[in-house]
Protein backbone atom coordinates (compact mmCIF):
# COMPACT_ATOMS: atom_id res chain seq x y z
CA UNK A 1 0.00 0.00 0.00
CA UNK A 2 2.77 2.41 0.92
CA UNK A 3 4.86 1.29 -2.03
CA UNK A 4 1.93 2.12 -4.29
CA UNK A 5 1.62 5.54 -2.68
CA UNK A 6 5.34 6.16 -3.12
CA UNK A 7 5.27 5.19 -6.79
CA UNK A 8 2.14 7.25 -7.48
CA UNK A 9 3.47 10.51 -6.17
CA UNK A 10 5.34 12.34 -8.95
CA UNK A 11 8.73 13.95 -8.79
CA UNK A 12 12.26 13.22 -7.60
CA UNK A 13 12.89 11.50 -4.29
CA UNK A 14 13.33 14.67 -2.26
CA UNK A 15 10.02 16.08 -3.57
CA UNK A 16 8.22 12.86 -2.79
CA UNK A 17 9.54 12.90 0.75
CA UNK A 18 8.20 16.41 1.29
CA UNK A 19 4.82 15.51 -0.21
CA UNK A 20 4.52 12.40 1.95
CA UNK A 21 5.37 14.36 5.10
CA UNK A 22 2.76 17.01 4.26
CA UNK A 23 0.13 14.37 3.53
CA UNK A 24 0.87 12.63 6.82
CA UNK A 25 0.53 15.91 8.69
CA UNK A 26 -2.82 16.58 7.01
CA UNK A 27 -4.11 13.12 7.90
CA UNK A 28 -3.06 13.51 11.51
CA UNK A 29 -4.65 16.97 11.73
CA UNK A 30 -7.92 15.58 10.37
CA UNK A 31 -7.83 12.77 12.93
CA UNK A 32 -7.21 15.06 15.87
CA UNK A 33 -9.70 17.67 14.72
CA UNK A 34 -12.67 15.47 13.77
CA UNK A 35 -12.20 11.73 14.20
CA UNK A 36 -10.84 11.53 17.75
CA UNK A 37 -13.42 13.88 19.33
CA UNK A 38 -16.19 11.91 17.63
CA UNK A 39 -14.70 8.64 18.90
CA UNK A 40 -14.29 10.01 22.43
CA UNK A 41 -17.92 11.07 22.60
CA UNK A 42 -19.41 8.07 20.82
CA UNK A 43 -17.26 5.03 21.51
CA UNK A 44 -16.00 5.66 25.04
CA UNK A 45 -18.41 7.85 26.98
CA UNK A 46 -16.99 8.37 30.44
CA UNK A 47 -19.96 8.15 32.71
CA UNK A 48 -19.68 9.60 36.16
CA UNK A 49 -23.41 9.89 36.87
CA UNK A 50 -25.81 7.38 38.37
CA UNK A 51 -28.91 6.59 36.42
CA UNK A 52 -30.48 4.10 34.12
Amino acid at each position, binding site marked *: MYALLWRTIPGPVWARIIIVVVLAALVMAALVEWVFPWAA*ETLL*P*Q*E*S*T*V*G*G
Partner: protein
Amino acid sequence: MFGTLVVPRFGDDYVRPIAGGVDLSTVLNNRQIGIGHYSETQMPGALGNFAIAAHRTTHGAPFSQIAELRIGDRLYVETSDGWYEYAFRGLEYVWPTGVDVLAPVPQAPQLEATDRVMTLTSCNPRFSAAERIIAYAVLDNWYPRADGPPSAIASITQASGR
Protein backbone atom coordinates in the same frame (compact mmCIF):
# COMPACT_ATOMS: atom_id res chain seq x y z
CA MET B 1 -23.44 28.06 36.64
CA PHE B 2 -24.76 28.73 40.12
CA GLY B 3 -21.97 27.85 42.49
CA THR B 4 -18.40 26.90 43.14
CA LEU B 5 -16.82 23.96 44.91
CA VAL B 6 -13.73 24.50 47.02
CA VAL B 7 -12.09 21.46 48.60
CA PRO B 8 -8.80 22.07 50.42
CA ARG B 9 -8.00 18.34 50.33
CA PHE B 10 -8.01 18.45 46.53
CA GLY B 11 -5.35 21.16 46.46
CA ASP B 12 -4.64 24.71 47.53
CA ASP B 13 -5.93 26.02 44.21
CA TYR B 14 -8.96 23.76 43.80
CA VAL B 15 -11.88 25.96 42.78
CA ARG B 16 -14.38 24.46 40.30
CA PRO B 17 -17.69 25.82 39.01
CA ILE B 18 -20.93 23.92 39.50
CA ALA B 19 -23.66 24.15 36.88
CA GLY B 20 -27.23 22.91 36.81
CA GLY B 21 -27.83 19.56 35.17
CA VAL B 22 -25.48 16.67 34.45
CA ASP B 23 -25.51 16.87 30.67
CA LEU B 24 -22.33 15.39 29.26
CA SER B 25 -21.60 17.76 26.42
CA THR B 26 -22.54 21.06 28.05
CA VAL B 27 -21.59 20.50 31.69
CA LEU B 28 -19.43 17.48 32.56
CA ASN B 29 -17.24 17.57 29.46
CA ASN B 30 -17.10 21.34 29.53
CA ARG B 31 -13.63 22.43 30.63
CA GLN B 32 -15.09 25.74 31.84
CA ILE B 33 -17.47 24.01 34.25
CA GLY B 34 -16.88 20.32 34.97
CA ILE B 35 -19.22 19.73 37.92
CA GLY B 36 -22.93 19.18 37.33
CA HIS B 37 -25.78 19.25 39.81
CA TYR B 38 -28.45 16.58 39.54
CA SER B 39 -31.39 18.91 39.00
CA GLU B 40 -33.85 16.48 40.60
CA THR B 41 -31.96 16.77 43.91
CA GLN B 42 -31.92 19.59 46.41
CA MET B 43 -29.88 22.79 46.33
CA PRO B 44 -26.86 23.42 48.60
CA GLY B 45 -27.79 23.84 52.23
CA ALA B 46 -31.37 22.67 51.72
CA LEU B 47 -32.94 19.89 53.76
CA GLY B 48 -32.21 16.75 51.80
CA ASN B 49 -29.49 15.78 49.36
CA PHE B 50 -27.37 18.17 47.23
CA ALA B 51 -25.96 15.77 44.64
CA ILE B 52 -23.26 16.62 42.11
CA ALA B 53 -21.34 14.64 39.52
CA ALA B 54 -18.00 15.12 37.78
CA HIS B 55 -15.38 13.16 35.86
CA ARG B 56 -12.65 11.34 37.71
CA THR B 57 -10.39 11.25 34.65
CA THR B 58 -10.48 13.27 31.44
CA HIS B 59 -12.01 16.68 30.79
CA GLY B 60 -10.20 18.30 33.67
CA ALA B 61 -11.12 15.52 36.13
CA PRO B 62 -12.69 17.63 38.90
CA PHE B 63 -13.16 14.57 41.11
CA SER B 64 -9.85 12.87 40.38
CA GLN B 65 -8.97 12.85 44.10
CA ILE B 66 -12.41 11.91 45.41
CA ALA B 67 -11.01 8.77 47.03
CA GLU B 68 -8.43 10.80 48.96
CA LEU B 69 -11.04 12.47 51.15
CA ARG B 70 -10.75 11.73 54.85
CA ILE B 71 -13.44 11.89 57.50
CA GLY B 72 -13.89 15.48 58.61
CA ASP B 73 -12.43 17.03 55.46
CA ARG B 74 -14.23 20.23 54.54
CA LEU B 75 -16.01 20.81 51.26
CA TYR B 76 -17.21 24.35 50.62
CA VAL B 77 -19.99 25.19 48.21
CA GLU B 78 -20.18 28.86 47.34
CA THR B 79 -23.39 30.29 45.92
CA SER B 80 -24.79 33.78 45.64
CA ASP B 81 -26.13 33.42 49.20
CA GLY B 82 -22.82 32.56 50.80
CA TRP B 83 -20.64 29.58 51.68
CA TYR B 84 -21.93 26.19 52.81
CA GLU B 85 -19.39 24.12 54.72
CA TYR B 86 -19.81 20.35 54.49
CA ALA B 87 -17.85 17.73 56.40
CA PHE B 88 -16.90 14.53 54.60
CA ARG B 89 -18.34 11.35 56.09
CA GLY B 90 -17.54 8.36 53.90
CA LEU B 91 -17.35 6.67 50.54
CA GLU B 92 -19.64 4.13 48.97
CA TYR B 93 -19.36 2.10 45.78
CA VAL B 94 -22.50 1.44 43.77
CA TRP B 95 -23.54 0.23 40.36
CA PRO B 96 -24.22 2.83 37.64
CA THR B 97 -27.92 2.20 38.20
CA GLY B 98 -27.69 3.11 41.87
CA VAL B 99 -30.02 6.11 41.70
CA ASP B 100 -31.00 5.68 45.34
CA VAL B 101 -27.91 7.68 46.28
CA LEU B 102 -29.73 10.73 44.90
CA ALA B 103 -32.70 10.36 47.24
CA PRO B 104 -33.27 13.07 49.90
CA VAL B 105 -31.92 10.52 52.37
CA PRO B 106 -29.28 8.68 50.31
CA GLN B 107 -29.99 4.96 49.89
CA ALA B 108 -33.27 5.37 51.77
CA PRO B 109 -35.77 6.79 49.28
CA GLN B 110 -38.69 5.91 51.53
CA LEU B 111 -37.57 8.29 54.31
CA GLU B 112 -38.24 11.99 54.77
CA ALA B 113 -35.15 14.14 54.87
CA THR B 114 -34.01 15.32 58.27
CA ASP B 115 -30.39 16.19 57.43
CA ARG B 116 -28.66 18.37 54.87
CA VAL B 117 -26.21 16.21 52.98
CA MET B 118 -24.05 16.52 49.88
CA THR B 119 -23.36 13.62 47.55
CA LEU B 120 -20.57 13.47 45.00
CA THR B 121 -20.69 10.84 42.25
CA SER B 122 -17.95 9.80 39.88
CA CYS B 123 -16.75 6.70 38.07
CA ASN B 124 -14.90 3.77 39.59
CA PRO B 125 -12.35 2.23 39.10
CA ARG B 126 -10.59 5.38 38.01
CA PHE B 127 -10.27 4.56 34.32
CA SER B 128 -13.49 2.61 34.00
CA ALA B 129 -17.19 3.34 34.00
CA ALA B 130 -18.08 -0.05 35.46
CA GLU B 131 -19.09 1.29 38.88
CA ARG B 132 -19.62 4.56 40.65
CA ILE B 133 -17.84 6.00 43.65
CA ILE B 134 -20.04 8.04 45.96
CA ALA B 135 -18.78 10.50 48.57
CA TYR B 136 -21.12 11.73 51.32
CA ALA B 137 -20.77 14.92 53.30
CA VAL B 138 -22.97 16.56 55.91
CA LEU B 139 -23.65 20.30 56.29
CA ASP B 140 -21.59 21.60 59.18
CA ASN B 141 -21.69 25.38 58.97
CA TRP B 142 -22.73 28.21 56.74
CA TYR B 143 -21.38 31.71 56.16
CA PRO B 144 -23.66 34.37 54.65
CA ARG B 145 -22.10 36.33 51.82
CA ALA B 146 -22.10 39.56 53.81
CA ASP B 147 -19.63 38.05 56.28
CA GLY B 148 -17.14 37.12 53.59
CA PRO B 149 -15.51 33.75 52.92
CA PRO B 150 -14.67 31.39 55.78
CA SER B 151 -11.13 31.95 56.98
CA ALA B 152 -10.05 28.45 56.01
CA ILE B 153 -10.54 29.15 52.34
CA ALA B 154 -10.23 32.94 52.24
CA SER B 155 -6.78 32.71 50.67
CA ILE B 156 -7.93 30.15 48.12
CA THR B 157 -10.92 32.16 46.96
CA GLN B 158 -8.85 35.33 46.88
CA ALA B 159 -6.20 33.67 44.74
CA SER B 160 -8.81 32.46 42.30
CA GLY B 161 -10.01 36.00 41.89
CA ARG B 162 -13.56 35.61 43.20
